[in-house]
């Protein structure tokens, strides 16, 4: 069989800091690969058409919907899922703790995606206005409609990281 028609392809990428290799079905999405090959079930299957953001992961530092990203494209990429935010002794990161403190979690399905987009936003080290922040978070749907608390968790963490005082 010619190389083009093989149904499986070897994909090597860095996932949460470790280099991993798997034989992947060429028809798989990155969501399929992360959940089925690596049991990273924080990557949620929501709409599977790139609308809800529940499957968001960071690829080379940028947030992508992994449901509309082919697994074979991940070869050579650096991928971070929610599991990658855990500290060496299981500590939560500041943004995760902020979600808890602000009760920004109800059913929890949208949470991993929101937190990864928030990580990209916060890691930029910039101070955003409320409108900019809303736009940056706009690729996620929370069907519990807990947006205010989510917004506040991200905003408070942004202020904290930049050493600024947060005003309600």
């Amino acid at each position, binding site marked *: 069989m010619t190389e083009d028609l093989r149904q499986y392809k070897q994909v090597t990428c860095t996932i949460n800091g470790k280099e991993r290799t798997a034989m992947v079905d060429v028809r798989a999405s990155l969501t399929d690969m992360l959940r089925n090959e690596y049991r990273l079930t924080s990557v949620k299957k929501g709409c599977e*058409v790139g609308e809800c953001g529940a499957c968001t992961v960071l690829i080379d530092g940028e947030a*992508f919907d992994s449901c509309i990203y082919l697994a074979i494209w991940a070869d050579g990429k650096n991928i971070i899922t929610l599991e990658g935010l855990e500290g060496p002794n299981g500590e939560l990161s500041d943004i995760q703790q902020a979600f808890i403190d602000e009760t920004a979690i109800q059913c929890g399905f949208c949470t991993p995606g929101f937190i990864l987009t928030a990580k990209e936003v916060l890691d930029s080290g910039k101070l955003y206005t409320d409108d900019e922040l809303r*736009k940056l978070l706009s690729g996620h749907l929370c069907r519990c409609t807990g947006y205010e608390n989510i917004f506040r968790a991200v905003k408070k963490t942004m202020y904290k990281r930049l050493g600024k005082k947060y005003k309600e």
Partner: protein
Amino acid sequence: MYDIKAIYEAKSVEHAVQLRMEHPEAVIIAGGSDVLIKIREGRLAGCELISIYGLDEMRGIRKEEDGTIRIGSLTSFSHIHADPLIQKHISVLGDAVNMVGGPQIRAIGTIGGNTCNGVTSADSASTLFAYDAVLEITGPEGVRLCPISEFYLGPGKVDLREGELETAVLIRKESYSGYKGCYLKYGMRNAMEIATTGCSVNVKLSQDKKVLKDLRIAYGVAGPVPRRAKVTEDAVRGSEVSPETRARIGELVLEDVNPRDSWRAAKDFRLHLCSTMAMRAFTQAVRKAGGEIDD
């Protein structure tokens, strides 16, 4: 898992052309934010794909010696928005692509995919029309250049021939130098929305900022494909910058557009949008260019 019959991964532009010749039925996949969704919906289920996503040579923005801005067709919307050359010379294009979908869609969506889909609602299309963009198309006979105004053949149909793929979007210096523009998008939501109508206007003012030396008006969703408002442009070029000229633009554009009724919006509402958006975008473009105009 996607319903894909086979996927051929291009290793270079030449290889992509070769794959296009070998598999004429196969669909090109760039970022996939349209193609994969069509597969999921069943409209493209069971298709063969030629993936060009891995071709980094088709990414990035640079200024060529003659001042032409060259945008590789695989450059993502988020990279175009953040690019210093775009911000400096064609900031309206950066603004327009920053209105596509949501942040994750802008990370994967490409300007080449946006144009090659041939849809009238593409957020980048009206601004590319307004800047007389030229598409670099690579095929078995080499490279040819196609003005974007000739590229769209009908809804979903573009002038890509056997073995060809779009490799870059070019904007010439004479098209952007001295021009300031504004893109407005009307939709029901602020994110994850397809434009009900989109309007991109740019102007070039005289030294004293009183006379309209040139203006260009382009629309998405004002007809089956993106289009320019040539009648209006010819009629008001050379007029003074004034609310009267703006009102004339608002009236004249109705002769240039041909929107339809759809479940998204009625024809008469779209006509109202075409007129109002042209006037508002014109006002903002004039102000960006340093001119003064009352509301």
